[in-house]
């Protein structure tokens, strides 16, 4: 492995991280928007948001990405590869995330909602001041899992020839022919990114729990298996990862 190859890999890591951050931001916006819409009083809003979730969870993220990249231009919108990737990942992982938001909102003690009604909060005040702050810490472990899934999903963007890590690996393989070494190294790089991401999310989770006066999970140290891993154990029916 020469220095030039490492430079290629680190450029790839940088694009991968960018892609992950952009899609995660979009996914979070979609998740909160759609997740809250699913608790709406209006039947039509609930129906539309439910349809969104089933459609985007029902299809494959890769097919969606190809659709945005190859089919959408035929309707007159040409997306740059990075944006097609961001949009596909954000929209589909947002649909998974909205289920997390909906579940966490539903898990807030009913008395809290009733108290907010009794205080004649508007629905929006109730959501913003009572339900969301309490639901938020509960969302963190499944969000952590989803973020790792999203990171793994960014590899799909290499098939649109976006110069992220997997794509750079392909170039490196073509120029050196050292398949085992090249793919071995980038698997480790992905693992390192995932490791860093989960540790950061664990910190966020601790702070979120502390902010509503809950004791954080006892920390098992930096290398403990994630408490979040328990969340992957038994996903709710619905045909999705976490």
């Amino acid at each position, binding site marked *: 492995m020469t220095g030039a190859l490492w430079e290629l890999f680190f450029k790839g890591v940088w694009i991968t991280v960018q892609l992950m951050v952009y899609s995660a931001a979009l996914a979070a916006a979609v998740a909160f928007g759609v997740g809250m819409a699913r608790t709406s009083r209006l039947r039509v809003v609930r129906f539309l948001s439910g349809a969104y979730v089933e459609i985007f969870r029902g*299809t494959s993220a890769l097919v969606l990405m190809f659709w945005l990249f190859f089919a959408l231009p035929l309707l007159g919108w040409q997306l740059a590869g990075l944006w097609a990737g961001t949009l596909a990942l954000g929209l589909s992982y947002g649909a998974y995330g909205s289920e997390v938001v909906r579940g966490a909102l539903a898990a807030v003690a009913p008395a809290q909602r009733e108290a907010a009604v009794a205080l004649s909060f508007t629905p929006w005040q109730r959501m913003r001041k009572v339900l969301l702050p309490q639901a938020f810490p509960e969302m963190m472990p499944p969000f952590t899992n989803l973020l790792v899934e999203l990171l793994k999903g960014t590899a799909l963007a290499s098939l649109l020839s976006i110069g992220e890590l997997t794509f750079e690996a392909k170039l490196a393989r073509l120029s050196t022919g050292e398949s085992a070494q090249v793919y071995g190294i980038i698997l480790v790089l*992905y693992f390192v990114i995932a490791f860093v991401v989960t540790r950061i999310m664990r910190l966020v989770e601790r702070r979120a729990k502390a902010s509503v006066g809950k004791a954080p999970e006892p920390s098992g140290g930096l290398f403990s298996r994630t408490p979040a891993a328990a969340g992957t154990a*038994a996903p709710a*029916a619905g045909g999705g990862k976490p």
Partner: protein
Amino acid sequence: MNTWSWGYVGDILPDLLKGLGVTVEATVLGSLVSFALGLVWALALRSPSRWVTWPVGAVVEFVRNTPLLVQLFFLFFVLPSWGLTFSPLVTGVIGLGLHYSTYTAEVYRAGIDGVPAGQWEAAVALNLPRRRTWTAVILPQALRRVVPALGNYVIAMFKDTPMLAAITVGDMLFQANTIGATTFDYMEPITVVGALFIVISYPTSLLLRALERRLVR
């Protein structure tokens, strides 16, 4: 600007359905591999010896936290150089099975943990050997409650099979790309593929929800 043509959809549908056959084949075989391998991981992780649990745990964590697509490339390009030459489909099935086994292992773990402690104690009281305890007492009860969760991973795997197109398996997405590359019209093929995924995975997930209500109480 082009418009949607049902005639074109009719022309390409046979090829896409052929791809669907490959997609389903990969999903079924991949699921079987992941069910078997996942159980192996789950049982190994309960071993009393650290020399077993630590390496197995590390492998499972590593495979779960790295992208399936890269694992597929690894298998596709590296296995032949180790003298193991498989067809792309078999390579894809190994990749899918290995990747999802790290998820099913977690499902089995939860299922086994869910068996009440009294069952273990009863097995000890009856002086059942270790093997009988597992095969006659614990696993039958654990497996019953993991079926819906395993089913969810089958659906997730089904939606990940388009990645096999990247290692030249002739699945639905591969067929759609081939068609698109010759006609320069990707709209119908890719839309139909996306729709087929929804048409299959949504009813299946409803079915699993019903099954979950029956099996898990």
